[in-house]
C-alpha cells in the first residue's frame, strides 16, 4: 500500500515538472520578445540593454528556466508588469475568488446530481428521471458562455432579481451580497458538472444494482434501504473520482464564465494578463492552476485507496 502511494506521489511530481517546462516554453512561444512588454518602444538602447541584463534575458534558456523555477518554488513570481503589484498577491486573491465560485458550483451540482441520479437509477420511468436526462444532455451540450448569457438575459435584464457582474455590490461586502452575485455564475459554471455527474451517478448506481451480490443481499432477507446502502457504498469510489475531477476543472477557473460575469477569479486573470502581455502573471496563474489540478488528482487517488478495500495491497 505504501508503495502504491509513493508511486502516485512520484508520478504527480513528474507531471508537475513537465508542467513547469511547458509553462516556461509558452512564454517563449508568445509573439514578440518578452522584453518588449517591459521596455517602452522608444527607450534608449543602453536602457534596453540594462534591463535585458537585469532580467537575465541574455542568459541561455535553460539557465533562465532554472532561475525562474527556483524563484517559483520559493513563491517568488516577481511583480506584475502592468500594475507592479506582487504576482503572488494577485494570483492568490484570484484563486480565493475562484475557490468561492467553484465551491458554489460544485456543492449545488454534486447534491442535485446525487439526488436525481440515485432516484432515476431506482425509478428509470419517473418524471425526475426525465428531468435528469434533460439536465444531463443540456448541461453537457450548452456551452457555458451561452448559458451565462441566457441566465443574465432572464434574471438580470428581464426580471432584475440578480446582479450580472462582480462579486459584491459597491460598498456592501456582506455574505448575502456575495451570495446574490454568486448564484448566476455558479449555475453557469456548474451546469456541465451537473450534467456529467447526473449521468455518472445514474449509470453507476444502475450498474451496481445489477451486480450479483445485490441478489445475495435480497436472498438473505435485507430490507430495500439496507440494500441501497450497499449499492451506494459500492458506487462511491467511482463517484468520488468523477466529482474530484470536476472540482479540479472548476478550480481551473472557467475563463468564459468569469469574464462574462466579471468575476475576479483565476480565469479572468489569465485572460487579462495575456491581453496586457503581463507574462509573469500568466505564467504564475497557469502554473498554480496546474499544481492545483495535479494535487486534486493525487488526493482523489489516495482517497480511492482508502475508499476501496480492493486497492489496498
Amino acid at each position, binding site marked *: 500500500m505504501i508503495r502504491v502511494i509513493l508511486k502516485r506521489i512520484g508520478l504527480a511530481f513528474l507531471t508537475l515538472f513537465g508542467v513547469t517546462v511547458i509553462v516556461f516554453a509558452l512564454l517563449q512561444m508568445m509573439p514578440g520578445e518578452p522584453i518588449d512588454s517591459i521596455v517602452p518602444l522608444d527607450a534608449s538602447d543602453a536602457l534596453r540593454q540594462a534591463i535585458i541584463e537585469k532580467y537575465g534575458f541574455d542568459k541561455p534558456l535553460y539557465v533562465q528556466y532554472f532561475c525562474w523555477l527556483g524563484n517559483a518554488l520559493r513563491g517568488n513570481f516577481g511583480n506584475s508588469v502592468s500594475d507592479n503589484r506582487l504576482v503572488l498577491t494577485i494570483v492568490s486573491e484570484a484563486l480565493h475568488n475562484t475557490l468561492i465560485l467553484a465551491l458554489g458550483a460544485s456543492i449545488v451540482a454534486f447534491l442535485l446530481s446525487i439526488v436525481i441520479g440515485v432516484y432515476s437509477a431506482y425509478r428509470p420511468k419517473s418524471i425526475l428521471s426525465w428531468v435528469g436526462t434533460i439536465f444531463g444532455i443540456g448541461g453537457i451540450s450548452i456551452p457555458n458562455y451561452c448559458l451565462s448569457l441566457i441566465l443574465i438575459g432572464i434574471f438580470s435584464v428581464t426580471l432584475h432579481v440578480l446582479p450580472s457582474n462582480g462579486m459584491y455590490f459597491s460598498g456592501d461586502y456582506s455574505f448575502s451580497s456575495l451570495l446574490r452575485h454568486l448564484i448566476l455564475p455558479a449555475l453557469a459554471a456548474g451546469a456541465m458538472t451537473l450534467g456529467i455527474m447526473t449521468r455518472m451517478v445514474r449509470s453507476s448506481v444502475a450498474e451496481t444494482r445489477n451486480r450479483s451480490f445485490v441478489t445475495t443481499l435480497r436472498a*438473505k432477507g435485507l430490507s430495500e434501504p439496507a440494500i441501497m446502502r450497499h449499492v451506494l457504498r459500492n458506487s462511491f469510489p467511482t463517484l468520488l473520482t468523477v466529482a474530484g475531477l470536476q472540482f479540479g476543472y472548476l478550480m481551473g477557473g472557467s475563463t468564459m464564465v468569469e469574464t462574462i460575469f466579471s468575476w475576479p477569479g483565476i480565469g479572468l486573470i489569465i485572460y487579462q494578463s495575456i491581453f496586457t502581455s503581463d507574462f509573469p502573471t500568466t505564467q504564475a496563474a497557469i502554473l498554480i492552476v496546474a499544481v492545483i489540478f495535479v494535487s486534486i488528482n493525487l488526493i482523489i487517488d489516495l482517497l480511492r485507496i482508502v475508499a476501496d478495500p*480492493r486497492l489496498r495491497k
Partner: protein
Amino acid sequence: MSDTIVKTTDLSVAFKVKKDLVPAVRQVSLSLEKGRTLVILGESGSGKSTYMKALLRILPHDAAIDGAAEFMGEDLLLKNEKEMRELRGDRISMIYQDSLSALDPMYKVGDQVIETIRAHRKSVSRAEAREQAEQLFVKVGIPSPRERMRTYPHELSGGMRQRAVIAMSLCCSPYLLLADEPTTALDVTIQKQILNLFLELQEKDGMSIMMVTHDIGVAAQVADEIAIMYGGIIMEYGSTREVLEEPANPYTRALIAALPKSGDRGRLVAIDGQPPTIVSMPSGCPFSDRCAYATQICKSSIPHLTPVTQTHQTACHLYERKEE
C-alpha cells in the same frame, strides 16, 4: 404430520420479452422431505437456477410465476414482499456458484454475516451477533475465524470464501438450503471438502438441501433424489440409485453416456446438437430435436411425468407407449 419441507405443483416461470411471455420453467412438480437432499441436474439454460430463484421469489420483476409452491405448509406465492423478506436468509437460505461476486466487495466478510443475523434477529446485539458469526465460522471449518472475519472477500481463497458464504447461509439455522452450483467454481479437492461439509451439517441440523448442478458426479455424492431438468421441464425424477443406474429417459441415458470413464481414450461421446434456448423451444418434447428415438408425437406434444416405480418417474412419450 408429513415432513415435507418444500413442494411445488406445476410451477412455471415465464419472462416477458418485449410483449411475449417466454417460458423458462414449465410445470415443475417436485417435493423435498425434511433432512433430505434433492439435486436438480441439468445443462446450463435448462431453467434449474430460475426454478430455485422462483422459490425464493428473487427473480427480476419481469418474471411471471404460475402454479403452486408450498414451504412447510405455507403458500410461498401468496406471501407479500415483507413476509418473503422475513423468510429469506432465515428459514430458507441460498448459496451461489461464484462466492466472489456473491459477496459485497466493500464489506468485511464478518460484517456481512453479522448483518444477516441482525436483519432477522432484531433483539441480538452487535456483540452477540459477532460471537455467533465466529461460532458459525468455526462450524464451517474456517481456521482462525476471528482474523478471517476481519478480511475482505477478495483476500480469501475460493474455498474459504465459499465456507464464509455457507456460514452466512446457516446463520439463522434454515430448514431449507438452496444451493446454486455451490462447488462449480472450486478445485476438485476443495469441492469434495465443501460437499462433505454439506452432508455433515445436514446430519447435525437435519436441514433439507436443494442443490442445482450440471455435474453428475456431485449429484451422485450428495443426492437422495435426483430430478433431471431439460428445456424447463423435469425429464426424470426419482431416487439417486434409480435415476443413475436404471435411467428410463433417453436424455438421462445420453447424459450418463457422455460421462468420461477411466480408461476411456479418444473422443468423448457427446450429445449431438445444442440444448434449446428459451426462445427457440420446440413445441413438443424439448429433447426431441436431439433424441435418436424421437417420433412424430415427440415433436408435437410435451410428455408428462409417468411413474416407473413408486419412487421413480419419467417424462417420455416412448415410455408411455411402452406401458400401453
